[in-house]
């Protein structure tokens, strides 16, 4: 974006045809293409893995839900790590783009965490006979979901933009610091009472499929976060535009 342009006071006209997409819209087109490619890739790798692998010794075809469940869980964790990093970067530099990234990662992470829990329950019901068990990984995931739901609630209820970003960054950092502690404590808590086995015991033939899928989902994650962050950036720009129209431009105002 050109740095010293005067603020735009009228919106550009909508593109006449697909062929003449204005420069400002091209990033979103690229994102859409990335999205289709990523989803397509993940669908492919999942399909291949499901078709190519043998039914599990103990659990049959149900085990193949792991090809979706494990990558989702791992990418949710990556998303929250991104929240952690982006939050630190925001507090350090106070640049809005880090706040957009933190918000996007938190929303996407929360969504993926919810999906993880649902898939885990679906696997769990036929396997253990119950929808929920206090398995350390699943439980930690549930706690993580609650921590980030709190993060999103805080952002929703703090009116002032800068304060919301700052407070959310702090909550995101402390929340992530707690995740390994939560995991350890739940694991120790569980070993005190011998309960069901965890879903770790799997055939080694599954590992290749898991690896491939875990990499494929990273593309999906990247696309989702990039799209959401871009939406956040556009929202912020739209607000600034509305300010200009309402109040008149500031002398030589530059865009962030």
């Amino acid at each position: 974006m050109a740095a010293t342009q005067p603020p735009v006071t009228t919106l550009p006209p909508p593109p006449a045809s697909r062929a003449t997409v204005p420069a400002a819209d091209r990033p979103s087109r690229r994102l859409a293409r990335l999205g289709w490619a990523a989803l397509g890739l993940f669908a492919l790798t999942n399909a291949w893995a499901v078709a190519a692998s043998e039914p599990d010794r103990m659990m049959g075809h149900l085990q193949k839900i792991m090809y979706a469940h494990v990558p989702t869980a791992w990418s949710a964790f990556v998303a929250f790590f991104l929240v952690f990093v982006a939050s630190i970067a925001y507090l350090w530099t106070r640049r809005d783009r880090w706040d957009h990234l933190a918000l996007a990662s938190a929303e996407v992470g929360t969504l993926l965490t919810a999906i993880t829990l649902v898939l885990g329950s679906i696997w769990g019901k036929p396997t253990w006979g119950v929808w929920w068990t206090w398995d350390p990984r699943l439980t930690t995931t549930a706690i993580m979901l609650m921590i980030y739901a709190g993060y999103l609630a805080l952002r929703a209820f703090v009116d002032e933009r800068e304060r919301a970003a700052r407070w959310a960054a702090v909550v995101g950092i402390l929340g992530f610091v707690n995740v390994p502690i939560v995991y350890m404590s739940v694991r120790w808590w569980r070993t005190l009472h011998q309960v069901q086995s965890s879903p770790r015991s799997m055939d080694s033939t599954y590992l290749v499929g898991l690896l491939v899928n875990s990499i494929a989902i990273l593309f999906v994650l990247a696309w989702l976060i990039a799209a959401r962050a871009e939406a956040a950036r556009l929202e912020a720009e739209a607000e600034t535009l509305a300010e200009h129209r309402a109040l008149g431009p500031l002398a030589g105002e530059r865009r962030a």
Partner: protein
Amino acid sequence: MRSVGGEFRREARRAGAVLWKDLLTERRTKANFNAVVFFAGLVLVLFGFALGPDAGTLRLAASGVIWLTVLFSGILAFNRSYQSELEGGALESLLLYPGDRRSIFVGKLLANLAFVLLVECLVVPMAAVLYDVPLLHALPGLAGIILLGTLGFVTLGTFYAAMASRVRTREVMLPLLLFPMLVPLLLAAVTCTRALLEGDLMGDARTWIRLLVAFDVIFLAATLAAFEYVIED
């Protein structure tokens, strides 16, 4: 120009001033402490109804119930501790004094710690009576666990309340932010308390105590570092 000792004395004076002010305010509006203690008693009784009437069940559940009662009643103290700052622009005046803002946090933390410990002094004997749990034999260890657990609880509670008390939906915001963070502390505190009360102190308890200490240290450091970002307007 200033000596390190002089700096420390100054900050200690500031923290002490906030502690004194909070305790004085609390004593003047006594209603709060009494209300919290009665609420805690009520919670104990309600848990008794929900889990009982079998005495054995109640005795087994006692450690968990005690800590849950502490959490639900203690949390009432945290938003209140910021209330005096929110009236009449006192918070802004508070932030104008030169010096480290973290002293303000330390002062408030100590005031809340005193408050919650005092509540616990009444809640634990109440629970021992209601749930028929002998605890005199475990007293020194129990006191230690209660202190460690309360410290972590109050640290995070005082910290999150700095934000939650200034949000519209403060009653629900504080538990929403605070309780998920307290899971390791709750697990550790309940496990150790149960081990102490039942008298079977396996080596396990030592791991949990280490976890509790690590939790307290990590989050005391983290909240101190982050307080500056949170207390500003």
